[in-house]
């Protein structure tokens, strides 16, 4: 529900109180202190840990400022790195393709059913993320209805599976983050004055041109917000790969998890986490810049 409003908040700062009192700082203090201690500080700790080296016993490390850790960690996991971004990109594109027409239909064609349809969009949030993913595993699994049906009509052979494939992982990612794509798209489409689309038709633009020249550019804030809200969690996810994938479709999240809990190599895990965050932030910044400043033709 938060995402419905993400973009609405930006340019409405009129009517703010301008007194130089302490009140705003008192309001901010508890929350920001919390975030500083439990978000900023841990991230700094993570950075510090990433350059440590093992010190004798398992699970003990000392600070040696070994930046080589990053290179080692990257070289050891570059495949999963690449896969994380590939899968997240694919899932984002798929989610956009599914969500855009859906959001469009809800915004412009749903009439009085609008609210019901919006609730249906977020319905997956009402069940457990893990249960949904496991449900997909069983639906697509060896004994599930999809594989049996496809085998019965010989679309796939007896040895071909759907689960434990990259396809299943991307499907799972797409499904799980679909509401994050749909809601911001809906919010930005819903704010478009339908008369601007009528005006385009009136000015000799056919349906496709109207979409390309008017609807799509006006819904860009939603496209940007939706793709970010889908891409970021998808790139860092490892549940879908763990449940729906096989060793060959592991993502960076799986590797970080393994370094922490199985190998107990905190510096490598920290270096990978840091690189993941940095890569996402760089991509996101680049993406926002590009989407924000260039007119889409």
């Amino acid at each position, binding site marked *: 529900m938060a995402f419905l409003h993400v973009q609405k908040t930006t340019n409405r700062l009129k009517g703010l109180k301008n007194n130089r009192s302490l009140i705003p700082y008192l309001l901010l203090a508890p929350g920001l202190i919390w975030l500083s201690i439990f978000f900023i500080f841990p991230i700094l700790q993570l950075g510090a840990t990433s350059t440590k080296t093992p010190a004798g016993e398992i699970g003990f490390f000392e600070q040696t400022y070994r930046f080589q850790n990053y290179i080692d960690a990257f070289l050891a996991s570059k495949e999963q790195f690449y896969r994380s971004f590939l899968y997240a990109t694919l899932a984002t594109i798929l989610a956009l393709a599914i969500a855009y027409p859906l959001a469009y239909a809800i915004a412009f064609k749903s009439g009085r059913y609008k609210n019901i349809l919006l609730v249906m969009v977020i319905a997956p949030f009402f069940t457990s993320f893990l249960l949904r993913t496991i449900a997909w595993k069983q639906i697509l699994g060896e004994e599930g209805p999809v594989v049996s049906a496809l085998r019965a009509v010989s679309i796939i052979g007896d040895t071909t599976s759907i689960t434990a494939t990259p396809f299943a992982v991307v499907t799972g990612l797409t499904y799980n983050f679909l509401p994050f794509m749909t809601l911001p798209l809906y919010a930005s489409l819903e704010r478009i004055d339908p008369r601007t689309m009528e005006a*385009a038709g009136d000015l000799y633009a056919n349906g496709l041109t109207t979409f390309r020249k008017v609807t799509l550019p006006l819904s860009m804030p939603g496209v940007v917000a939706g793709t970010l809200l889908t891409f970021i969690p998808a790139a860092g996810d490892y549940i879908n790969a763990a449940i729906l994938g096989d060793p060959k479709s592991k993502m960076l999240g799986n590797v970080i998890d393994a370094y922490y809990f199985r190998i107990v190599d905190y510096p490598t895990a920290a270096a990978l986490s840091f690189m993941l965050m940095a890569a996402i932030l760089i991509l996101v910044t680049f993406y926002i810049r590009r989407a924000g400043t260039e007119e889409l033709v």
Partner: protein
Amino acid sequence: MAQDASTSARGDLILRNLTKTFGDFVAVDDLSLTIAKGSFFALLGPSGCGKTTTLRMIAGLEEPTSGSIHVGTTDITDMRPYQRPVNTVFQNYALFPHLSIYENIAFGLRRRGISNDLIKEQVDKVLNLVELPQLAQRKPGQLSGGQQQRIAVARAIVNRPALLLLDEPLGALDLKLRRQMQIELKWIQTEIGITFVHVTHDQEEAMTMADTIAVMNNGKIEQMGSPDDLYDSPKTAFVANFLGQSNLIPGTVSGNDGDNLIVDLHGNKIAMPKRRSSATGASILAGIRPEKFRIAPEGKGATGNVLTGGVVSDISYIGVSTQYQVEMPWGKELMVFEQNDDDSDFLKKGEKVVLSWEPMFTFGLDGSQDASAGAH
């Protein structure tokens, strides 16, 4: 083929038996109408009367339930909006917020594949016509309401449509700007000679700008004619009340006197020109516009048609004129506008008065109607 219509079709706009229903609701009811090429036509009526639906059907934004729409000899009923020789100035303008003013105006030209040079020439020309050439690179959000309105007009007329539709184009402007834009729109229409079809609920706006007004009510046209024709000779109580104000007094036709009917209004015999009455039976509504009344203290001489026994119940002084409410012996109040052009004595509240007027200013309506239909 159809694409060509957007530039080639010219001529009168002809609506035949146009009907639009939304479920059980009949928005436009069997409307037939011809709008002459080059005229400034106003569809006037209260909200919900079907005028906007009619306009949207002409623009192609609503599909008619039945009936046809022609421009000249071209049937445009089934054409998509972008195939029609019609452009619209939308209510609240619907300017594209993401495009500059220049690109807003160029939008239609670009869709029709016109060369950049020609587009620039035409956009510049139309920006000059609406006197805003300096705003070309701004975005719509940076413009005032009046400026946006002019750009909306420019964006439509730059395409040289056969027909320009204006949907309450001045509704969002303040009074002073509205008056100014009325004059400008009228001037632009004369300048470029395109047929304008203007939808409004503001009778003053329609009167100021249009050559021909069609007053709509409940999906039908009540009456159509020139502004003065409609004002002087309304044919229904709705038109009499909606276009300006009218005093409609029920009475019975009691006789004949050459060119005049003699009508009995609650015991007062008055004369009414026969040609100004649309009533067929004996039951009649006698109509007198408030400014046609003369008002005088009881006892003073009165000529023409006379109503006696009135008492002033309310007075409002509004500069050029004074408005009186006069309670008549039969319990109804009449409205009287008196020009403040002489220093005749002011009347006071509670004072007994006589109302009189020239018989030629009386019009007659069928008595079976609701006398308050269409009153503001």
